């Protein structure tokens, strides 16, 4: 199985690779036809906080429905990129476009902290995710459906404080999914979980992504998580995309397979060699 390691490919080439790579096509065909992801085009994106230039010109095309992982050392700008995509920060220069007009409900973010309202029961917390449709008559039914999807239907009437960390994060995932988003951004969503919960959450993420076909953008510090979940891994160094790695392994993926381990090793060595240079 080939792994492509390139440095800052031009956007058009990236797009064509994603469209014509034979393995990527296999992945896409496994998904149902109602795949609803949005493509994402980022051009010349820059962002500074004060004198600190965090993103120094990001050019990136993400085809609809792709699962992209973004890795990098802390402070490299990966979370900032995600927050810009999610519209949580203002863009200094450049553009992010989704190819069409989008509703706020089309993009959802999941954070490292579950950010549940402690004073609302689980079902009500999921209903928050409906955005402007919260008041509609089928809000309960839709929230319940999302809870079933994340496997927590029996916890609907619990307070968040009695749930475990993994369960809270699943409620947060249900809240993010309930509006059927077309882009889902994950900011280290599994960072605070223990190893076993983390693996079962990774499986859950992969499953809902395959079921719903949204475009997934996962920021993580865990390279093995990135290669286990993503079609494509972006390595960000000093505010730029330093490497763009396609992961062609078939799904569902075997955790700890030689293929993934080899890929993980090569990405890690990139990250570490960048460390040595500085």
């Amino acid at each position, binding site marked *: 199985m080939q792994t492509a390691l390139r440095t800052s490919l031009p956007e058009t080439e990236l797009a064509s690779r994603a469209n014509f790579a034979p393995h990527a096509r296999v992945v896409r065909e496994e998904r149902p036809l109602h795949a609803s992801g949005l493509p994402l085009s980022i051009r010349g994106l820059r962002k500074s906080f004060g004198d600190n230039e965090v993103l120094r010109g990001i050019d990136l095309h993400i085809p609809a429905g792709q699962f992209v992982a973004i890795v990098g050392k802390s402070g490299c700008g990966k979370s900032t990129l995600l927050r810009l995509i999610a519209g949580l920060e203002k863009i200094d220069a450049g553009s992010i476009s989704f190819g069409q007009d989008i509703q706020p409900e089309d993009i959802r*973010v999941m954070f490292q902290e579950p950010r549940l309202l402690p004073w609302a029961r689980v079902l009500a917390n999921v209903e928050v995710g409906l955005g402007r449709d919260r008041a509609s008559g089928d809000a309960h039914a839709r929230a319940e459906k999302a809870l079933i999807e994340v496997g927590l239907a029996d916890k609907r009437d619990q307070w968040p404080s009695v749930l475990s960390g993994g369960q809270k994060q699943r409620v947060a995932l249900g809240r993010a999914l309930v509006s059927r988003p077309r882009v889902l951004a994950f900011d280290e969503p599994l960072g605070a979980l223990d190893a076993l919960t983390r693996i079962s959450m990774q499986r859950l993420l992969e499953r809902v992504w395959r079921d719903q076909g949204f475009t997934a953008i996962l920021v993580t510090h865990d390279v093995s998580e990135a290669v286990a979940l993503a079609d494509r891994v972006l390595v960000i160094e000093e505010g730029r995309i330093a490497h763009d790695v396609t992961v062609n392994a078939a799904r569902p993926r075997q955790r700890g397979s030689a293929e993934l381990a080899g890929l993980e090793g090569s990405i890690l060595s990139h990250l570490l060699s960048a460390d040595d240079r500085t």
Partner: protein
Amino acid sequence: MSLIDSISLPRSIRLPRANGLIQWIVPLTIIAIWQAASVTGFMPTRVLPAPSDVVLSGWKLLLSGELVRNIWVSFWRASIGFLIGGSIGFAFGLANGLSQLSAKLTDTTLQMVRNVPHLALIPLVILWFGIDESAKLFLVALGVFFPIYLNTLHGIRTVDPQLIEMGRIYGMTDGELFRRVIFPGALPSIFVGIRFALGIMWLTLIVAETIAASSGLGYMAMQAREFMLIDVVVLSILIYALLGKLADSASRVLERLTLSWHPAFQKR
């Protein structure tokens, strides 16, 4: 159970389920010892009347209607003063918690006023209002204002900013954000303010009624002192204690009802 003293204790020292009875053991024992001391003449009745005498005089006053009237007057003053001062404090707390401009405009002034003991204003208040009802209401309202203001403000300022960001991401309007995130988040702190305020409310009222009043429990106690009716004096003090306990319990019940989501209030 309140927020503070319900923080879970280690298993080994948690009391058994008979909590409802346990809290009355100490007061009942004290009353029993007191009664015994009075009956045996160990404690002269000029110093402290026997509990039975206090109950007897309470019964007489109850029959004459004087007790109920005075309790009602004090209760009315306390509640109205609390409502006025509490609402103004809550309103300022909200305004200064939610608006930077409002906080800049008024917070410094309020902090300066806060450092004046409100009971120091009694001479001034008597000059302004005489010994009218409004004097008592003014003092109670002023005393109650600050704990509620400070705790409301603190509660709103310490709402988790991550939750507020979450609310914004999920498209909550300002009104929804307040109703669903900010107010519930500030509520535990507001209740701390209410319980502080209830203490200050009784304190202020007792002082105000003792110094300048023509009705109420404090007045009843002062009248009794004039006529050396020590049992009535003790009775008034006990009723104050009872009313204070009642107000505290009421706020705890309210706390329990509205904060049932809080880990401290969940059945373990």
